[in-house]
């Protein structure tokens, strides 16, 4: 009843090609943005910002990047952690080696480093596909682990291999408080998400999807596989690299190569699969599930068991957290193999007919 498009007529191609053709969607997104930018900074506590919202926003950005490669172009990658690491260390080197380097150009240059690295390790995708490619991209992960542990130049000759940044500023405004960090990351996320959405709606996105669905057929209708695949690697690793730089600069402040280990590659892939392959909103859902759920479980379980007078040990909680988390992933994938984004779009479909389903 509320979510019905009766009476919304589109009289031009422009109107038909909007990102959100339904008026209710536009209102909902505008409200969501208003809440995210205005209401949340007023309500959320320091802890919610630093431990939940900032990691969520940054990981959503990374998942968005991975989704372009895995979801839209169908190139399964296990090297996302490496692209994040290259973005982080690239931005770090630009930041410390050029005095007075502003933060945003450093992040973009870090993203460009990751782009180059991504194209380099995307080359095997021209020959190998599917799981074989996934294994090939693992090489990127191992290579970056090795590179940032061993080559001292990348860590500015730090003895321990751990590096740190401070005095972050954007246009003279310090990025120190939790609110400013959150707003900065969120603004970047919104800009990148908008660009990505338009990219996947355009010609290049259609090429990616054609390659994903059947690369031979795509080649037959005139899509160049090399161009399509490498551009997907380039765009994806640029976004993932920027997310890596944000993770290091804004969230951790000081980091070591272990912060971008193979585990983070797996987590990003899980985010994309659970969130929904080939959808921009999927990245957000997936990031929320993977980042927030363990933390919520970790705090919720002791309180929940406390209601029944049972005290659980710290170890017990973290074991239970892993078990419940694993079980939920399996359950979700059985109930909805296309991810949370699909669940969301099903809900929207049902809402259109509500309250009179066929």
């Amino acid at each position: 009843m509320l979510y019905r498009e009766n009476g919304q007529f589109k009289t031009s191609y422009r109107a038909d090609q909007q990102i959100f053709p339904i008026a209710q969607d536009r209102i909902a997104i505008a409200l969501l943005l208003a809440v995210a930018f205005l209401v949340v900074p007023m309500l959320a506590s320091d802890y919610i910002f630093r431990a939940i919202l900032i990691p969520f926003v940054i990981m959503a950005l990374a998942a968005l990047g991975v989704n372009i490669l895995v979801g839209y172009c169908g190139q399964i990658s296990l090297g996302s952690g490496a692209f994040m690491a290259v973005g982080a260390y690239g931005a770090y080197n630009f930041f410390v080696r050029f005095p007075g380097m502003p933060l945003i150009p450093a992040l973009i240059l870090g993203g460009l480093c990751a782009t180059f690295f991504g194209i380099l390790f995307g080359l095997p995708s021209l020959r190998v596909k599917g799981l074989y490619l996934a294994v090939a991209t693992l090489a990127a992960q191992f290579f970056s682990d090795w590179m940032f542990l061993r080559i001292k130049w990348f860590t500015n000759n730090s003895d321990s291999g751990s590096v740190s940044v401070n005095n972050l500023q954007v246009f003279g405004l310090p990025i120190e408080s939790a609110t400013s960090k959150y707003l900065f990351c969120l603004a970047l996320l919104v800009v990148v998400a908008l660009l990505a959405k338009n990219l996947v709606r355009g010609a290049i996105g259609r090429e990616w999807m054609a390659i994903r669905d059947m690369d031979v057929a795509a080649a037959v209708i005139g899509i160049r596989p090399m161009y399509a695949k490498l551009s997907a690697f380039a765009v994806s690793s640029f976004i993932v690299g920027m997310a890596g730089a944000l993770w290091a600069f804004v969230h951790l402040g000081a980091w070591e190569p272990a912060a971008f280990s193979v585990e983070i590659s797996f987590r990003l892939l899980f985010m994309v699969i659970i969130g929904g392959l080939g959808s921009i909103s999927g990245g957000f859902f997936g990031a929320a599930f993977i980042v927030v759920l363990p933390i919520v479980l970790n705090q919720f379980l002791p309180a929940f068991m406390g209601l029944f007078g049972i005290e659980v040990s710290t170890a017990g909680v973290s074991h239970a957290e892993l078990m419940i988390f694993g079980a939920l992933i399996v359950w979700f994938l059985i109930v909805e193999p296309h991810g949370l984004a699909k669940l969301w779009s099903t809900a929207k479909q049902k809402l259109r007919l509500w309250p009179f389903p066929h």
Partner: protein
Amino acid sequence: MKLSKLVIAAAVVAAGASTITTSAFAQAKEQFFPLLSYRTGPYAPNGVPWANGKQDYIKMINARDGGINGVKLTFEECETGYATDRGVECYERLKGRPGVSLFDPQATGITFALTEKAPVDKIPLMTLGYGLSVAQDGQAFKWNFPFMGSYWTGADILIQHIGKAAGGMDKLKGKKIALVYHDSPFGKEPIPLLQERSKMHGFELQMLPVTAPGVEQKATWLQVRQSRPDYVLLWGWGVMNSTALKEAQATGYPRDKMYGVWWAGAEPDVRDVGEGAKGYNALALNTSGQQPKVIQDILKNVHDKGQGTGPKDEVGSVLYTRGVIIQMLAVESVRRAQERFGKGKVMTGEQVRWGMENLALDQKKLDAMGFGGVMRPLSTSCADHMGSTWARVHTWDGAKWNFSSDWYQADEQILKPMIKAGADKYLADKKMTRRDAADCQS
């Protein structure tokens, strides 16, 4: 139908989360100790006794003394799994609690991340025997306290001991010493000092990294077999240590030529290897065993009442005792702060920081607290945030650890300029200046 269930589940979770946040802020006049720990993951065998010791000491102080001058002690544990991002999350979760005193991050990686955050939040960090070596310079690192030793002091003492065992430091010339280390900031920290010592004495330093967590060491020990170093220094943690000892056994490398840092010298490291680890040496910051009075107090006041954390027979093990020492230093810092800022009051992080900077635990005090013989006296100042750089070596005889050397002190002559240079570089990178004399009084 699936959707409705989902919504209900989400609502239940959300409701639960909100009740915790409200209930946790209810208490007041209590000194709160946030305990970061890892009871899961590849480092759990070593993380568990350490965390147990910390908890038991707090419980014992509450039961025996009724807190610090009447201020009750509370704690909450937060599981990090040794992962930096989870550690940061735990820190953010616990730092806002009322009466929060200090953080012991229990991991070098987390320490690095928190070093950036602690000055902003005005909460001190205690990193006993680990963390940033240059943080001994309290004039540069106001909020870091690497009590009782850093990786540089540890490496220095090991070289001194090896030199003594070889019959004099000049005998080290031409010898080959291999460093088998955990490939992380934790393992890499000692390298600059070892390089310095190798230049001084003319021994060859061979670097053999082991990828974290350290179960895959075949290639490393193949290199050991090939180059036959005269001594092996083991810079491992958790599962890496026992694996290294097994590999040494398989390679036929003599265990009595192996020297571990104090994080590679506890029961979990050697227990599974048993006889195979016989003769293996490691640094020791503290004793082990149930004889010391403080351990007896814990057994009497906590474990005999059925409130102990962990199994009773692990009380007094090497890492358990270290946990007790860490918590004792935390409690004494609060007590010291109370002497200046008001007895019987809850101290803020800033006040506890002053307490940590002005600790003076001499032998008499230690004896009175039941720590006689367990550790060396310790006294800190604005310039020296470490307080004591003494350690000795103990050797595994197949069943227990026995002390095999006298106390050594790390060589000031070598350490001082290195720490000064490192701290100056840190300050220059961060565009900060040294604390002046007035700041030292605050």
